[in-house]
C-alpha cells in the first residue's frame, strides 16, 4: 500500500496519535505521555496504538514493567477495622491489664476473625516475642512492641485509595508487603502487587513519512460540504474535503414505482398489442345473457348456478337486452335457429337472461365485441377482472384477471388456431416446446388446451382456445370463423414475483410491495 492510501485508510484516533509525534520525529514517548498529550481515554489510546503497531507505523522502543502495590478489598477492610495482628495484640494487652486469661478460641470469637487470620497473626506475634503461649493454650502478652503491627498500620494508611510503586518503600516495609500480598491460594491478604507495563514508542521510517505528510495536509482547512459560496469565490481550492466512509450502508428511500403484478400485466398488454391485438373493455356487472347465454351455455349448465356466479342484489335484472341478439340467441338455445344446430331443446327463459351477475368470464367481453360489428380480419384482447363464487385460498381468488380475446378472419381454421397458440407459447411464455390437447368449453368446437414447457416451471397449461361454435357467432351477426382464446397467466406472474399464494398478488403489505423487484 502506498503512503497516501495508507494515510486515507487511517482512523481519526490513529491520526491523533501519529500527529503527537509530529513535532519531533525522533521523539520517544511513553504511553503515559501519549495519554497526556492526546487526551484520549485509555481504551481509545490502546486501540489506536495497537492499530498503528499492526500497520508498522509505530515501533516499541523499550518496555518496562513496574511493580505497583495497592490495597485489596481485604486491605481496605483492615484500613477501616484494623488488621487482625493489631486486634489480637490489643485484646492480649487488655487481658494482661485485667489478669484475665484468654484462649485463641476466645480471641477468635470475640473479634469475629477467621481461623487463618487469627493463627497467622498469633504466629507472627509469637515470632517477634510479643506474645507467649502458655499452658492450656492461653495467650500472654510480653509487653514488647510489634514491628509488624506498626508497619502494617502505616502501610494501610499510605496505600488507602492510592497505589504506589513497590520500590518507594524501605526494605522493612517491602518485606511486610511481600509477606502479606495476595498469592495464589491465599486471597485474604491486604496487599496486591501488579506489574504495570510502560511502553516507550517511537515512529518507524514509514511512520515518520506518514506523520510528515499528515502535518502538511493539516495546513489546509477541512470542510464537510461543498457550498455555492465556495464555488462562487473559488475558495474551494484552499479547502480539504472531509472524506466519507463510503462503505457504509446507504440510507433507504422508497421510490415511486409500478406495482409488480401490474408491471407483469403491462408487459403482457404490450406484447398483445405488438402482435396486432386491439384492446376491448367491458362492464363489471353483466347480464346472464352476455355472460353465458350468448356463449351457448345452456341455462341449466352447472357452472351457472348459485355456487359458481355472484348475483347482483339490486337491481336484480337488466331493463332490457338488445335485439335482435336476444331472440337469435334464444332460438339457438331452443332449436338451433339459423345456426345449423339442433340446439339444447329446452325452453329458453328470457327473465333468466336478464338476471344481473358479476362478470364471471372474460369471454363476456368478447361476446359484446362480436355483437358490435368487429373488424374482419380482426384481433381483440381484454385483461378483464372476473368474479367467481369461490372460497378464497392460496390458489383461488374471489376476483382475478382473465387475459382472453378473439381472432376473426376468413382464413381462420383449426390449423391457424394452433398457429396462434404457438405464437402465444413463444412470445408470452418463451417456450420452445408445445403440446396441444383436446379440451372442452361450452362455446368452442374444436377446443384445444395449450400446454408449454416453461423455462422455469416445466410443463404447464398456458391457456385454452377453440373456434367459436356457430351457435355463438351467427346469432351475434358474425359469419366468419372466430378463434376464442384465453391465457392463464397467474402462475407465471407468481413465479415472476416470487410468491406462492395468489392472495399476495393483491397484498396490503406495503413493505412487501416496495421490496418486490418484479419481472425483469
Amino acid at each position, binding site marked *: 500500500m502506498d503512503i497516501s492510501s495508507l494515510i486515507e485508510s487511517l482512523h481519526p484516533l490513529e491520526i491523533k496519535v501519529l500527529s503527537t509525534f509530529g513535532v519531533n520525529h525522533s521523539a520517544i514517548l511513553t504511553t503515559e505521555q501519549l495519554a497526556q498529550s492526546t487526551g484520549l481515554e485509555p481504551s481509545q489510546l490502546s486501540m489506536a496504538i495497537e492499530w498503528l503497531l499492526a500497520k508498522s507505523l509505530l515501533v516499541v522502543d523499550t518496555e518496562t514493567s513496574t511493580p505497583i502495590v495497592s490495597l485489596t478489598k481485604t486491605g481496605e477492610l483492615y484500613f477501616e477495622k484494623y488488621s487482625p495482628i493489631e486486634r489480637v495484640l490489643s485484646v492480649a494487652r487488655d487481658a494482661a491489664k485485667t489478669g484475665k486469661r484468654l484462649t485463641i478460641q476466645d480471641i477468635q470469637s470475640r473479634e469475629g476473625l477467621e481461623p487463618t487470620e487469627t493463627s497467622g497473626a498469633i504466629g507472627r506475634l509469637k515470632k517477634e516475642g510479643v506474645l507467649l503461649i502458655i499452658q492450656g493454650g492461653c495467650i500472654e502478652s510480653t509487653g514488647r512492641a510489634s514491628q509488624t503491627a506498626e508497619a502494617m498500620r502505616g502501610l494501610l494508611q499510605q496505600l488507602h485509595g492510592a497505589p504506589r510503586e513497590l520500590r518507594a518503600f524501605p526494605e522493612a516495609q517491602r518485606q511486610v508487603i511481600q509477606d502479606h500480598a495476595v498469592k495464589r491460594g491465599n486471597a485474604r491478604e491486604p496487599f496486591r502487587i501488579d506489574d504495570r507495563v510502560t511502553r516507550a514508542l517511537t515512529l518507524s521510517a514509514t511512520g515518520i513519512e506518514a506523520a510528515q505528510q499528515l502535518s502538511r495536509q493539516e495546513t489546509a482547512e477541512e470542510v464537510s460540504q461543498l457550498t455555492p459560496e465556495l464555488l462562487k469565490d473559488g475558495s474551494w481550492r484552499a479547502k480539504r474535503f472531509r472524506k466519507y466512509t463510503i462503505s457504509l450502508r446507504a440510507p433507504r428511500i422508497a421510490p415511486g414505482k409500478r406495482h409488480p403484478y401490474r408491471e407483469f400485466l403491462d408487459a403482457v398488454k404490450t406484447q398483445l398489442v405488438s402482435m396486432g391485438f386491439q384492446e376491448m373493455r367491458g362492464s*363489471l356487472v353483466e347480464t346472464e345473457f352476455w355472460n353465458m347465454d350468448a356463449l351457448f351455455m345452456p341455462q341449466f349448465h352447472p357452472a351457472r348456478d348459485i355456487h359458481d356466479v355472484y348475483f347482483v342484489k339490486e337491481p336484480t335484472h337488466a331493463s332490457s337486452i338488445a335485439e335482435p341478439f336476444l331472440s337469435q340467441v334464444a332460438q339457438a338455445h331452443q332449436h338451433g335457429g339459423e345456426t345449423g344446430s339442433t340446439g339444447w331443446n329446452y325452453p329458453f327463459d328470457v327473465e333468466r337472461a336478464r338476471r344481473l351477475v*358479476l362478470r364471471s368470464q372474460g369471454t363476456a367481453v368478447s361476446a359484446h365485441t362480436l355483437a358490435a360489428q368487429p373488424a374482419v380480419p380482426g384481433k381483440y384482447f381484454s385483461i378483464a377482472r372476473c368474479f367467481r363464487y369461490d372460497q378464497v385460498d392460496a390458489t383461488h381468488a374471489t376476483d382475478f384477471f382473465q387475459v382472453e380475446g378473439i381472432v376473426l378472419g376468413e382464413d381462420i381454421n383449426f390449423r391457424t388456431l394452433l*398457429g396462434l397458440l404457438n*405464437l402465444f407459447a413463444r412470445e408470452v411464455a418463451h417456450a420452445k416446446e408445445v403440446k396441444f390437447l*383436446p379440451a372442452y368449453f361450452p362455446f368452442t368446437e374444436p377446443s384445444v388446451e395449450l400446454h408449454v414447457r416453461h423455462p422455469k416451471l416445466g410443463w404447464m397449461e398456458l391457456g385454452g382456445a377453440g373456434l367459436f361454435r356457430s351457435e355463438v357467432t351467427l346469432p351475434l351477426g358474425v359469419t366468419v370463423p372466430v378463434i376464442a382464446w384465453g391465457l392463464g397467466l397467474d402462475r407465471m406472474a407468481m413465479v415472476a414475483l416470487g410468491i406462492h399464494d395468489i392472495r399476495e398478488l393483491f397484498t396490503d403489505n406495503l413493505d412487501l410491495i416496495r421490496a418486490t423487484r418484479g419481472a425483469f
Partner: protein
Amino acid sequence: MPTITIFKQDLETLLAGPGEAPQPITIEQLEESLMLVKGELKGQNPDTGELRIELQDSNRPDLWCCEGIARQFRAKRQGALSKYDFLTTKLKSPKRLNVAPGLEKVRPYVAACAATGYLVTQEGLAQLVQTQEKLSEMFGRKRRTVSIGLYRLAAIEFPLTYDLVKPDEASFTPLGMNTVMTLGEMLLVHPKGLEFGGILAGQDRLPFLRDAKRQALSFPPIINSRESGEVRVGDDALFVEVTGTDLSMVVLTLNIFAANLADRGAVIEPVEIRYPYKTVLGTGVITPQDLEKSQKLPISTIEQALGQALGAQKVANALRAYGYGVATKGKHITVTLPFYRQDLMHAMDVVEDVAISRGYGDFLPVMPSQFTVGGLSRIEEVSDRVRTLMVGMGFQEIISNILGSPQDLRDAMRLEGTEWGQLVEVDNVMSQNFSALRQWMLPSLLRVEAASNRAFYPHRLFEAGEVARPDPTQSVGSRTVTVLGGMIAHADTHFSEAHSCLDTLFYYVNQTYSLEPIQHPSFLAGRVGSIISEGKQVGVIGELHPEVLERWQISVPAVAFEIDLTELAGR
C-alpha cells in the same frame, strides 16, 4: 368435469374384450390415449393399479367410466366400434314393464333391460356403482332428470309395473335400513329421502316400481328395496332401470349401462315399456334403443374447418375409428353417432371428432396471415399516462380486489345514507369481506395504509382501476368507471401536498380544473373540495377525517384525491 377412479387391470381386461387375455397398457400409452377422451391422469397408485382420471367433456357421459374409456380406445385400435347385437335382435315376447297412468305429471319416463351371464367382480361392481352415481349426479342433475336403479334379476318376476301410489300405500325395507317403512316415511326419515325428496315436492302420489308379485323394487328416484336392489359380487343376472323426466336422456343412460355390461360379457335382454300415454317414441318403447339419426354433410365443411384437405377416405376412417357409423358418397359423408352418445348438435362437433381421432399432433400449425393493427383502448391510454405521472411524483402503485365489504367501502368512510355510499351489492353472499363492488378507490388505498404502519414513511400510494357506481339510467343498473386514487400519509402531511400532485396531473393531461368547497363526510370540513372540470364533477380531494382514520386504525394524517378517468378519456 367428473373425476373417476378406475383400475388398470380392469381397463386392460376391457381393452381385450370378454374371454380374451388382458391387453397390457403402460402409463405413457394411457396418458397418450387419454387425449381420445379429453381425459387427464390426475393420480395413480402403482401398488393397487388405481388410476384417477378427470374427464373434461360434460356432454360425453358415456366416457365417465372405465368401460366407456376402454371402448373409445378399442375403437381406435380396431379402426371401428364392435357390434352390439341387442340393438337389432327382435324378441318374440320381450320382458315387459307397464307404466301407470298419471306418471306423465310426476316422472314420466322409464327404460330398463336385463343383463345375464356376467359374473359380477369386485372391480366391476365398483364401476357399476360409480357410473350410477356420476350419471345421476352430474348428467341427471342430482337425480332430477335421470336416476338409476340396479337389481338382482333372480329376485324379480315379470311383468313389472312402474306405478303411482299414495305415500302410505306402499312400503318396503329400503337399502341402508332394516325396518319396513312407507314411501312417505322414507321421505321423512331415510338419508336419501331427505337429500332427494325435493324432486317429488308437491306430489300427492309417488312413483313406485314393483314386480308381478307386487314385490317392491324401488321408490324412484329415492331408494331401492333391500331385498332385490342390492347387487353383490358373484351375481350373474342383473336388472337395470332408469327413470326420469327427459325421454332421450333416460334412454341414453340405459344405453350406456347396456353397452357397459355388454362390454363386460353380459347378454343384454331388452325390455318393452308400455306407456298409457303418448311419448315421442310411441306407447310401446323397446329399451335399450339406438335413437341416433344419421346426418349428411359435405366433406369440404370438415376440410375447411380443419384447414387440411384430408379426402373422404381419411375422414371416414377417422370417424369410424372414433365409433361413428359412416357412409361416403361423392363429396358428402353421412355419419351416425354410436347409440351411447347424443352430443351431435352441429357439423363442427363432427369436425372436432375427426381432429381428435387423427390426433391434434397430426395438424401442422399455420400462422393467421391477415394483417391487423393493434392498440389500446382510449381509457387504458389515459390510465397508463396518469400512472406514469404518479410514479414520477414518487407514488407506489398498489392493486386491490374490486370486491370488498360495505363496512370498509361505506361505513368506515362515514358514508352511510349518502349518495357516495351507494353500492352494487352481491345477492348470494359467501363472505361479508367480498360482498360489494368498490364504488371508489380510497378504501383500497386505506386498506394498504392500515396494514402498513411499520413501513417507513412517507407513504405515497395510488391505484388506477375500475369501480362500479349504481346508476339507474344504465340498463344494468350501474356504470363501470375507471378512476385514479392517490393518497399521502405521514406525520406532517396536509392538503396542499395532495393539491400540488393534482395540479401537476391536470397540467400534463392538458385539462383545466377548479376546486369547489363541499361537505363530504370522509374528509375534514373546510379541507375538502370537489374537482370541477369543464363544468362537471370529476373527483374529490381533501384531508381524511380523523374519525375515518380512527375507524381504519390509522395513526398518521392522510390526504387523498380521486379522479374519474373515464370522464377525462371521453374528451
